[in-house]
């Protein structure tokens, strides 16, 4: 593997040293090909997270009373938005969106949905 690509992967893992990061920035500034690879690598990293979340997500469990819906961090953001708009008004009481991956999901409910923060 080329040295600059090796540093890209270290950046993804956040294990790159300050000195390597400076070198990498110089190379990224000059090389559009390396910037393209960086973008690809980041997209793959994001897609892998999504794969993992899809694997983990059980179906949304709906019960009477307080409802708890499990989502991954990214899915939770979309789910919250969808609920804000699409959830029938009569069923809006006490919906809890939980970030199953504990990545600190936070979203503002603007008073329509009671979203508990975890």
């Amino acid at each position: 593997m080329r040295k600059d690509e090796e540093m890209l992967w270290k950046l993804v893992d956040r294990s790159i040293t300050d000195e390597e990061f400076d070198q990498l920035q110089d190379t990224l500034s000059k090389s559009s090909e390396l910037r393209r690879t960086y973008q690809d690598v980041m997209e793959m990293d994001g897609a892998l997270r999504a794969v993992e979340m899809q694997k983990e997500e059980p179906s949304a469990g709906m019960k009477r009373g307080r409802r708890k819906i499990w989502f991954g961090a990214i899915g939770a953001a979309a789910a919250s938005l969808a609920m804000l708009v699409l959830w029938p008004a009569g069923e809006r009481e006490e919906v809890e969106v939980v970030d199953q991956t504990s990545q600190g999901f936070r979203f503002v409910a603007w008073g329509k949905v009671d979203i508990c923060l975890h």
Partner: protein
Amino acid sequence: MDEEIESAFVNEIAQSQLMMRSYLAKLLANSISTDDVLQEANKVLWIKRSDWDPETPFMKWAYRICYFQAKAFLRDSKRERLVFREDLFDMLAAEEPRDDTTRQRERALHGCLKKLRSDDREMLLRRYEAGESVDKLAVDTGVGANTLSQRLRRIRVRLHDCVRRNLTAYSV
């Protein structure tokens, strides 16, 4: 904003999460705060939803908001160690992912994941579980953290090469 447009907006924002996150991760050098900035960008998108013109590409607008949110985050956060120089940051921001290749890449990734040896695939996916750091994975598997880190990197390089080959094949 009428209900139909609002519903289309929700659809757009739900479908764009992965691309927005990748874009932000690129600008923020894969900071652990990427998800927080994504949430902030989502909030801004929602607040400004009435500004959205359904006739214009949603992603262009979303990336612009991500750009400003990433800038604001870096301005306010002094603890980030890995911050791109401003000229490079702007260069990276200007090179937005193309929607069609992003979706092709996702499909290719699924195919390539299946081609990995099952133990490599398991190891890789465990790495992406929340809290499953390389150190914890190393303890669980009885392998040294450095060795494991190298192995994971090799798996991802193989996966990346496979995705790249597939994308080239699609484009021919």
